[in-house]
């Protein structure tokens, strides 16, 4: 009997694992279990082109439906996993079925952090994580409607951009003193704030939402002691890793299932990849990444390890966001203590901010600047030392920096 693999979680990391397991020569049966109604799909377009309506649903799916059968992967959808019985090496599903495994991969992802203020459960309060979420939002996402967005991070701002484009009245409430504070440098925050205001989006910084009010649905948001009328509330205040199954099975989790550099948990038969994990990053300390890059690369490394070809995971993290006609691309993980070097003129809406640490390129944030991003990512991977004046000098092409 060949070994079999069970994958819990039918998202980007799960789909990647199926593809990589086959590419890496694993020939045994694979079963992938998902709690949503759909086979693995891309989430990034949900808050962008899909919400805007310029990207039809069939294009979201990462693989053709026929792919899974062809790849020898049984898909069990609409079915949450209920428990992992490590001693018996079985996964118990919510419908009572049990699946035996030789090796198990957890790609359970993350779920949205819920708002907890009074009124947070009123009809009209939306989140954005799944196709079903967007379909619900789309029904009310119409020109003239007033949308209050809680959280000025990627999701909130992408929805703000789509909303402004579609003619909604958009207000963004952000508790911190700048936009995308967790993700980008202050320079980028200021640039994007100006762009959103130009598009007519109202920004309320340092303004936490205290309550949502309405008779039987959302009518207003109370923030910073003031009332703001609203027809829709969209909450984008981050995600939490789906680690409950792992925790209940006694696997270590510290705000993310703890895995090693081969994506393996403390149980030699169980691996984990993607948003649900915490792993030792390239810089030697534990990090949790919420991004497509980590879903893809960590799943590839899990597959390699499960196929008996383990290789250390140390890829440079990358991220992107589309807001209006601005493509923001980031490679590497910045730190507040980095020396920032501006290349190009933000007024031209095409520029980059490089982060130097001990003289080496540690991260790059690029706006509509593909060469800076692409080559910057390479510089980060190599830890290349480049003088700030050289990086800032646009008469020197990025290719010459390599």
């Amino acid at each position, binding site marked *: 009997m060949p070994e079999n693999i069970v994958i819990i979680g039918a998202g*980007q990391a799960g789909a*990647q694992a199926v*593809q990589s397991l086959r590419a890496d020569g694993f020939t045994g049966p694979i079963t992938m279990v998902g709690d949503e109604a759909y086979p693995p799909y*891309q989430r*990034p377009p949900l808050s962008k082109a899909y919400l805007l309506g310029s990207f039809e649903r069939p*294009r979201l799916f*990462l*693989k*053709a439906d*026929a*792919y899974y059968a*062809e790849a020898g992967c049984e898909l069990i959808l609409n079915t949450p996993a209920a428990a992992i019985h490590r001693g018996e090496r079985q996964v118990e599903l919510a419908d009572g079925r049990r699946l035996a495994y030789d090796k198990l991969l957890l790609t359970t992802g993350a779920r949205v952090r819920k708002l907890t203020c009074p009124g947070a459960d009123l009809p009209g309060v939306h989140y954005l994580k799944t196709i079903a979420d967007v379909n619900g939002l789309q029904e009310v996402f119409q020109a003239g409607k007033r949308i209050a967005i809680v959280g000025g991070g990627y999701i909130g701002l992408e929805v703000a951009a789509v909303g402004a484009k579609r003619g909604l009245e958009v207000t963004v409430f952000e508790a911190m003193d700048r936009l995308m504070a967790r993700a980008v440098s202050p320079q980028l925050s200021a640039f994007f704030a100006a762009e959103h205001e130009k598009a007519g989006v109202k920004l309320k910084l340092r303004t936490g939402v205290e309550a949502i009010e309405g008779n039987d649905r959302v009518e207003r948001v109370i923030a910073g002691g003031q009332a703001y009328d609203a027809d829709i509330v969209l909450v984008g205040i981050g995600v939490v890793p789906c680690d409950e199954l792992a925790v209940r099975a006694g696997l270590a989790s510290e705000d993310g299932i703890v895995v090693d550099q081969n994506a393996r948990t403390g149980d030699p038969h169980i691996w984990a990849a993607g948003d649900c994990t915490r792993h030792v990053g390239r810089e030697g300390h534990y990090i949790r990444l919420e991004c*497509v*890059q980590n879903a*893809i690369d960590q799943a590839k490394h899990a597959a390699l390890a499960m196929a008996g070809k383990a290789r250390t995971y140390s890829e440079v993290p*990358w991220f*992107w966001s589309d807001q209006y006609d601005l*493509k923001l*691309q980031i490679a590497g993980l910045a730190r507040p203590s980095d020396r920032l070097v501006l290349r190009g003129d933000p007024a031209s809406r095409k520029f980059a901010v490089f982060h130097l640490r001990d003289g080496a390129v540690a991260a790059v944030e690029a706006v509509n600047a*593909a*060469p800076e*991003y*692409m*080559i910057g990512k*390479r510089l980060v991977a190599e830890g290349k030392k480049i003088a700030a004046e050289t990086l800032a000098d646009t008469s020197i092409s*990025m*290719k010459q920096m390599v």
Partner: protein
Amino acid sequence: MPAAKYKVTYIEDGGKAHTVEVAEGWSLMEGAVKHLIPGIDADCGGACACATCQVYVAPEWEAKLPPKSDMEETMLDFAPEVRPNSRLSCQLRMSAALDGIVLNLPKSQH
């Protein structure tokens, strides 16, 4: 009304040809993925972030394609096995003008 569909032929490195129909507006990468064409990995799902959907465009079709964006150009600078007629198929949109296009696939995308 369903979108019009046009023909694309993907030829694997070993010479095996797959002629399939791709809907107008879809990328030629999406067309390949939809039809399970081996040889296009498309890791990133079309975000122009991975360069694993490289194709070689048959000479008679090269001129009919839109020019490369900065992004595509830079991605290709660092992709393996790049040739003068390399393109990233996630950046090419199906249209009537491309009906019948022939794309050769590299041996490996990594």
